[in-house]
């Protein structure tokens, strides 16, 4: 099939470009970017932490749009609905991966810079709650009865998407009322221009990687769906033969 050949070639090229971008960004982050005055070399964690955190806020919306598509299409056009569902689960898993990394790198930085693994500040707490939401989505997919999984997960995704802005706002109000030590400096800390190249290359690289993961996971899910449908067809054909 020529189409799958094209897909795999494009995919491979994208992967190579992505790895190149990440390698370049990593090199810039570790070697070229200047050492930060107050925090020292540990600050270099930022070049992985901040892009990952920003990207982890994007994928939930991919999941939401795909889930909304699924709910809209599932009666009229089941085939397209299945495609939407595959995008939804891919986006949810990538969200969990990126937010996990955001939490982990944040904790390692905090431990090195402040001596504490955790603080219930606005950003970390909101990221933790985001992580919880999408882990619960994955748990629902795992534990629900087959046949219902996709619809129930899509419904939960709508709830989660509405919840995300409410979570961020409410945690911010909470921390305004009861301040706690803040990781990563307050709202005024900007990025020095000499740090921009490393930062930009890491955002680009990890965004490309995120797209790669999304598409790869989507392809896996489509393959599984096809296997399921083949199996279902085979068993139906089996009963037809007996009826004859």
């Amino acid at each position, binding site marked *: 099939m020529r189409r799958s050949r094209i897909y795999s070639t494009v995919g491979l090229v994208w992967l190579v470009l992505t790895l190149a971008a990440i390698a370049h960004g990593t090199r810039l982050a570790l070697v070229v970017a200047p050492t930060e005055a107050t925090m020292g*070399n540990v600050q270099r964690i930022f070049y992985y932490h901040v892009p990952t955190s920003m990207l982890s806020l994007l994928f939930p919306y991919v999941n939401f749009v795909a889930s909304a598509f699924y709910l809209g299409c599932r009666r009229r056009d089941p085939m397209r609905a299945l495609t939407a569902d595959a995008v939804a689960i891919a986006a949810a898993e990538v969200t969990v991966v990126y937010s*996990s990394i955001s939490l982990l790198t944040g904790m390692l930085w905090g431990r090195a810079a402040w001596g504490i693994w955790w603080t219930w500040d606005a950003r970390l707490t909101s990221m933790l709650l985001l992580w919880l939401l999408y882990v619960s989505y994955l748990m629902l997919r795992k534990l629900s009865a087959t046949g219902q999984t996709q619809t129930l997960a899509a419904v939960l995704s709508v709830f989660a998407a509405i919840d995300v802005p409410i979570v961020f706002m409410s945690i911010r109000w909470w921390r305004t009322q009861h301040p706690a030590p803040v990781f990563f400096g307050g709202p005024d800390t900007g990025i020095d221009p000499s740090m921009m190249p490393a930062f930009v290359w890491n955002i680009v690289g990890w965004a490309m990687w995120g797209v790669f993961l999304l598409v790869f996971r989507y392809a896996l899910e489509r393959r599984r769906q096809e296997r399921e449908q083949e199996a279902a067809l085979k068993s139906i054909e089996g009963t037809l033969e007996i009826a004859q």
Partner: protein
Amino acid sequence: MRLGWIFGSSMEAHHLLAAYVAVWLIQGGYAGWIAWQWARAGKNL
């Protein structure tokens, strides 16, 4: 190589190294899991 300091003995350096390696392990691990599942789904039932 100018990266020698990373393998130094300070806690800072250890945490930095741990952070970067953890990211590669998690991202690579997830991609590897997808690839493994892909191969498994490709086998005939």
